[in-house]
């Protein structure tokens, strides 16, 4: 028997993926495209990993500057590096 695609009501998933939001974002950006069911979960995974890398990088930047707080410059620098390193087609 296949596992149901929906989670039973009693289950309370922590750190849920905002599937509706992701689907909506995609639709807004690319209305002529369709996104599959599991695609948004992987998108969420991608976002998580992206945020993780960004946070790690920002933290490194902040520590290098000997700041106890992450400032926007650190985040900006981290994002720039991400853009450079990422070999996305559109980037």
């Amino acid at each position, binding site marked *: *028997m*296949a*596992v149901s*695609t929906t989670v039973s*009501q009693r*289950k*309370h*998933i*922590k*750190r*849920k*993926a*905002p599937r509706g*939001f992701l689907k909506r*974002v*995609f*639709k*807004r*950006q*690319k*209305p*002529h*495209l*369709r*996104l*599959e069911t*599991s*695609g948004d*979960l*992987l*998108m*969420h*995974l*991608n*976002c*998580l*990993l*992206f*945020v*993780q890398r*960004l*946070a*790690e990088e*920002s*933290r490194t930047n902040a520590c290098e500057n000997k700041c*106890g*707080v*992450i*400032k*926007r410059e650190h*985040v*900006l620098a981290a*994002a720039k590096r*991400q853009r450079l*390193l*990422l070999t*996305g*087609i*559109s*980037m």
Partner: protein
Amino acid sequence: MADSGNPDSEPTTRTLLRRVLDTADPRTPRRPRNARAGGFWVPGPEGKGLQAKISDESSTLHPLVPPPCIIQSCWSLHSAQRALLETPSSRRLSSQTKMTARRRSQRTKSIGKLAHVQASGHLEEQTPRTLLKNILLTAPESSIVMPESVVKPVPAPQVVQPPRRESSRGRYTVNSLPGLGCWPALVREPLGDPKSQNWASWPLHPCSLELQLPELEPPTTLAPGLLAPGKRKQRLRLSVFQQAMDQELPLSQEPHGNADASSLTSSLNLTFATPLQPQSVQRPGLARRPPTHRAVDVGAFLQDLRDTSLALAPPDTVLEDTQPFSQPLVGQSPSVHHSLPCPSHSGAEDAERAVSHRTRSSGPRLQNNSPGKPAQLLAGRAEEVDALAMSFSHSSSSIFGEVAVEPLQDGVGEEAEERMEESLSMSKVKEAARAQGSARAEEPEGHTQVTEAEGSQGAIETKEPEGSSGDVDTSGRTVSPELAASTLEFLQAKQLQCLEPAPPPSTAVLPLEPLSARLPPRARTPGPKPRQGPYKTRLSHYAKLFSFYAKMPMERKALEMVEKCLDKYFQHLCDDLEVFAAHAGRKTVRPEDLELLMRRQGLVTDQLSLHVLVERHLPLEYRQLLIPCAFSGNSVFPAQ
């Protein structure tokens, strides 16, 4: 029973067992577990039969056989209990059964048992049951506390889910413990710690042990009669124990435990149902979070729109009434940002480009519209609209197209298309629009309409008929809801309306264009709520994750910067996915495209597969949906 151990004389255990046996007696349905018992078990009167068996067993001193018989009897006794019990481990039952059996045996024959136990010294090797049995047999009589009452509470807790510590803690612990284990732990006083520790190895919560104490207390008091004279001492200790328990109970964190204790005390009989209290009741924390509502955002957005629109002096008041609010804002935003007539043209061009399929005469018409204000307004509207009704994008644009009567609509549709594509820019435009605050009376109305439309997605359809009426006002109204769906529409409508009742939509496009162009330099307009309302909430969801992963305090500005980066990231993500899907000749983005994207990003390598990442970072439920797994019946889910 893992520990097994040692039955060495743990009086408590034995007492517990006795209790179980005693309490279990009345319930024993006699189950034909004869297979195990073989000749030893003879179904006789429930309680008696077992006892008889036990006695027989003890007399026979058969090392191996008796234990199973006892066990079986116990099993049968607790069969009903078992059904109720959720205890995952059968050991508990077995322990109980053992206990009951043992109790019987003890009752019938203490000496025999001892001998029996010795003879079956190797019983321990066999199963926990045997161990329990040994314990009972070997444990000194004095340890017995309460016969039946003890048994009852024991089974009750067993019923309770072991993992649920809450209310059922007391019971639960008992359940989780193979009966005996918990008891010795519970009856700390008489037994002394070392003994309890033997059982401590059992899967019990320390507090559960404590909780169990109260359970034990009542039983002890209930079935004193069963206790042998020597056991009276235990009983006394138990009473002391109970007192100690009472003291401990308040200390225990589980309020449920108290409830359990009380319930236990109140009911001697096994109350399998009681322990199973609804988790939600016991654990309010587990209740699902209520869904967040966005109504507030809309309201705030409306307010913002009103404010901005009111600030502006609407030249075309009449038209504006019907026009969507976006228009005035649109006009403002462009003016604020660029204040150049040219931008409108470029904006129109962009809009047309962006909205290839939507591009209609409305585009040029939009441009014809007064570029400055309408564009600004539209841009602003677009932003607002965008935020208001993201989902409307397609429908709204299509609707607009249909309403040919109103060039505005077409233009708006284009704008909507544009806006849809530039979600980010939209917000910026809106902000600009707001800043400009075109004083279009219609804007506020439009906003309201838009917001209302947002609230009801079905508004689009209603709007359409309105638009078809061909009335500027109507179109404006229809546009407004549609605009809500797509900022583009708003921009166009605004522009059109701003100019004249039937201004060429082309002009509207122009102003829209500049708006779109201005989107990036988002002006800090007070209100891009619709766009940001639901969108921002989710973005901030990721921003919070950022702060969690960073493990360092962050500035507010840094969080905003993170949100901006995420915006851009989403854009890039969608673009990439589009390219990949197109490369595969598909119009649907599949998980394979996502995997390819992650591979390109270096997240997925030959050493690290996508499944590993899924397992690591996603919750279990999503993992089930993503990774194909084989199930019984030769089925694989999800289907490949």
